[in-house]
């Protein structure tokens, strides 16, 4: 236990990066998801195809490889991103693909009558989407999105490959130094669990808030 306490600040710094990266990528990923989900459902043929390809490629390839391509691959073309920036970009793109599928399902679950009522009252397709469909779809999408967000929390550990010392990497560094692994792995397991539980809790609050009309 002692080595955990004495190294706690080091681990907490790792946890800080884990949280920071998760939140930033969640934010941008959600924006991407809305755009892509609508593109897939309402776009013209080539836009739909593009959105499909994006989802298929991103979901189909490991996030680790995506991170490496953004960080090292783009460097070959002169785009020298900072590690954190590269992490935000790669993970936003990744989360965007997963969330867009969730959101697409939710949008499709909204009855046709909702569109018809809005159109009949003179709203344009864009107004209808923004004011009537999306608010209801987001409500439906929250529980499955929770799975995605919590998964993302742990996928951030992949960014250690581009030198970001997040929570898992901090543990690995300490293990290499002290040559004992269980206490450190258990310690970060607890920290991840606290973060996940915190996330779930917040998501449930939001869900309940958005459910007042049910």
């Amino acid at each position, binding site marked *: 236990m002692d080595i955990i306490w004495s190294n706690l600040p080091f681990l907490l710094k790792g946890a800080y990066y884990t949280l920071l990266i998760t939140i930033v990528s969640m934010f941008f990923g959600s924006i991407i998801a809305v755009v892509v989900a609508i593109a897939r459902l309402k776009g013209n043929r080539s836009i739909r195809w593009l959105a499909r390809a994006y989802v298929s490629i991103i979901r189909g390839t490991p996030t680790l490889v995506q991170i490496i391509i953004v960080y090292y691959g783009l460097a070959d073309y002169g785009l020298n991103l900072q590690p954190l920036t590269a992490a935000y970009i790669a993970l936003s793109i990744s989360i965007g693909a997963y969330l867009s599928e969730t959101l697409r399902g939710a949008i499709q679950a909204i*009855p046709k*009558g*909702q569109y*018809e*009522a*809005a*159109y*009949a*009252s*003179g*709203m*344009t397709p864009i*107004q209808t989407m923004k*004011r*009537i469909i999306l*608010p*209801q779809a987001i*409500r439906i999408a929250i529980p499955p999105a929770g799975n995605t967000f919590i998964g993302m929390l742990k996928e951030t550990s992949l960014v250690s490959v581009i030198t970001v010392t997040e929570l898992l990497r901090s543990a690995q560094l300490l293990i290499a130094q002290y040559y004992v692994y269980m206490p450190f792995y258990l310690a970060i397991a607890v920290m991840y669990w606290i973060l996940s539980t915190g996330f779930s809790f917040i998501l449930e609050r939001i869900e309940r808030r*958005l459910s*007042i*009309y*049910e």
Partner: protein
Amino acid sequence: MNKYGDPMIKTENLSKSFSGLEVLKNINLTVETGEVVAILGPSGSGKSTLLRMFNGLEELSGGRIQVGGISVDANQSQRERNKQIGKIRLHTGMVFQQFNLYPHKTVLQNVVEALLIVKKIPREKAITLGEKLLKRVGLLEKKDQYPNRLSGGQQQRVAIARALAMEPDLMLFDEPTSALDPELVDEVLAVIKELAHTGMTMVIVTHEMEFAREVADRIIFMADGVVVEEGTSEEFFSRPKTERARKFLKMEEVIN
């Protein structure tokens, strides 16, 4: 010309197919301004489809339709048609069988939504108007409730208030009472009857024979995608001209 002025709706050889299946065939009809028309007919005869074409919820497959002087026809480009339909919708209100209230908005928000974002009326003015309409349908005290807390009859009255909010020249009703329990039906019928007295042009698809007889100036009777018979309410119910209509009226009697 006739006693009503320009017709509110006029269709010419209107037709509609769903992937090969022709459900409306060469419909020619006119609804005068200020008239209340009930569309009757057996299930699957095309009543809902026809009604939905009046405000562009169904694309037309052939022919021409004119609503409030704005015309849409099968030869226009998609773009042009959409523009015309947009205009038609601005002065047409519709009330759906399944109500289709926005569940995430309160009763008042449901009523004022389109006022705010389509007509872009200032919020305060919209709310005043919305409350006036809710009072008219007897639901002012429910204005801050969400629709799922209301009974079916109450929901349908909110849907009517929502359609009225846009101050339409034409109201379309698709079986406005058939999703309701018997005891909720008359709440809604009362509101529609009151509207009829105000001189608003209305087209109502319904299975309530008694109600159609009472409220409609004219009956359009459809079967298998064509208008089989047309006539004043009085004529249609007491002296139906066609065999098909007689059969239909008899059958309805047995059920009710």
